[in-house]
């Protein structure tokens, strides 16, 4: 019972952390890696640091129509 509660708590923490990261424009890194490995196995995969920088630059890229912060 407690183990199940623990697992559930861990899941909630994970979802909260993912949400917080996506709120600032950083999608889930493991998802990205899985995607690259599944669909582009012959191509290089960015490290987390590269991934982070790429996403950070993309969030503020000029001309992508990324509006935020409602009036």
């Amino acid at each position, binding site marked *: 019972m407690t183990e199940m509660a623990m697992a559930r708590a861990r899941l909630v923490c994970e979802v909260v952390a993912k949400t917080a990261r*996506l709120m*600032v424009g950083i999608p889930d890194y493991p998802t990205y890696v899985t995607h690259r490995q599944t669909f582009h196995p012959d191509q290089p995969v960015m490290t987390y640091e590269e991934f982070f920088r790429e996403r950070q630059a993309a969030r503020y890229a000029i*001309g992508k129509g990324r509006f935020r912060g409602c009036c």
Partner: protein
Amino acid sequence: MTLQAKLMWAGLAVLGAIAFGIVALSRGEPVNAAWLVIASACIYFIAYRFYALYIVGKVFAIDRTRQTPAYRHNDGLDYVPTNRYVLFGHHFAAIAGAGPLVGPVLAAQMGYLPGTLWILAGAVFAGAVQDMTVLFLSTRRDGRSLGDMIRSEMGPAAGAIAGIGVLLICVIILAVLALVVVKALVGSPWGTFAVFATIPIALLMGIYVRFLRPGRIGEMSAIGAVLLLLALIYGRTVSETPALAAWFNLPGDMLALLIIGYGFVASVLPVWLLLAPRDYLSTFLKVGTILLLAIGIIVVRPDMQMSAVTRFIDGTGPVWAGSVFPFLFITIACGAVSGWHSLISSGTTPKMIENEDQICFIGYGGMLTESFVAMMAIISASVIHPGVYFAMNSSAGLIGTDPAQAAQVITGWGFAVTPDMLTQIARDVGETSIMSRTGGAPTLAVGMASILSEFLGGRVLMGIWYHFAILFEALFILTTVDAGTRVCRFMIQDLVGNVVPAFKATESWANNIIGSALSCALWGYFLYQGVIDPLGGIWTLWPLFGTANQMLAAIALTLCTVVLFKMKRQRYAWVTVVPTAWLVVCTVTAGLQKVFSPDPAVGFVSHARLLGDAVAAGKVQAPAKSLAEMNRIIFNDYVDATLAALFVAIVVATVVYGLITSWKALGNPKITAIEVGGAGVLAGGSND
């Protein structure tokens, strides 16, 4: 539906009706804010279950088997199928901003009831419908932007007109938001110090997350939050040490120039250094504070001091001019319906939706949550004493700068208040004066401080809570200013680039600097004029901002209507036609009144004429102090009148294009909506 479910929904409806009855009908006795919370929660649940699900099922006829762009273009980066709760958080963080916090505070001058009704009805029938429909349209078009969709569905001319509208709204939003910050920080060393401290903190965080511990957002944000808290606490020492306070006790025009300069620097610096870390900090602070305020209101359950309806329902209020129709519906834009959201619903969110059946939860649900934020803002503004509310939100031109005089004027309006109350509340929050702190943010901060201090810390901590609220608003407003300046720069480059093609190259440093300077000059002009405006700036600019925002909503809803016609679902088009018609009527009436109203408090032109006559007679008319100042006000009146007229023209032109396109679609027996990626429903869709 099972009997049990039916009973539950009936119970919810009865509970909501009772709560609403208590809110609307009790006279003389203060109403507890809890009733307002219960009434709105019941309405949100019922609207979601019976209206939003009806729209997605019957009107959109969503297709659960249809691949969303997140799957079709899955790249693990921009297009990623995302858990709906995670995506909901992302979407909400992107739409929530200063709008739903400021508008309702200003609207409280008419009492809390008119604003409350509009926030609820507007969100349920207009705002949430707009957000969800645009999200649906964009999801079926590879996550294209609003401008792109207008171009492809309504033609390039309509697209170009909408583009100009978006640029104008961007300029006005940046100016008004920066004005809110200036008004909150004028003569407040504590607040100014805390806000300035965020710059070195952000630089430190930026370097930390790029070089020291790359990509560790959690650690970085924790460090930033601790430093921010220290700056907040140390701010009191700064304000109490005259030698230090002198550095941060700045007049409004100085603050305005600093913010314009800051906006320029922040938009040309590399984003990782200043913009991104501040964005992270402000996003987390924003969401955290909104949650905290919700908990505070539920735990404390404060009584509403403001009456349900005040005498200013007649349009003679000191916070903004104009009667309930159309100006209440302009003053509360975000929180009820906000055109800005249509840009976000067609931004990153549609690229991450897993399935079309989640559009309702994210689009409609996200807006209902935002609407609840607006309810909290109106509650916060209503729990403080009405006399204090009017002292904070009336310009010095109306109530003077002396507490005794202000108390007399406000008591004369029928809101009994003593000079002691005005000075005491200023002392409580650690300021020298709280009078004429227009712009909503300080009022909200006092309301939040009184709610939060009641369950965390008591009166001793009221100053900390007040400045915490100011800091939280200033931080995310300034982040919007940096990011908005960059967006604005791009739009200017795009627009000017049509004439001077070399200007379109966004990699060029020269272009970036010229573009940023132009963009800062545009919003900076309105900001500076607002700051030195003897009428208080907010009085003049907020209605313009509201009109611009509702204009964009009218454009977005027109697009939604046109597409429903092109999908041959005109039988159900009333769900977007009704809010479109309402917004068009509101924006056009408000715009025309701002230009032509013979009442100088409302009409820009008649105000300019009034002052012009005085100048011709060589008289200086209060609140202006010199003839030069009067000439400046006259010039600005004509600038503002031109803008208001432009907004009306944009709305009317869009509606005309909308009518023509809908008429054509009606005559065509085939589906003409240009969707991407469906099987069999395509009509001329291109797959780029």
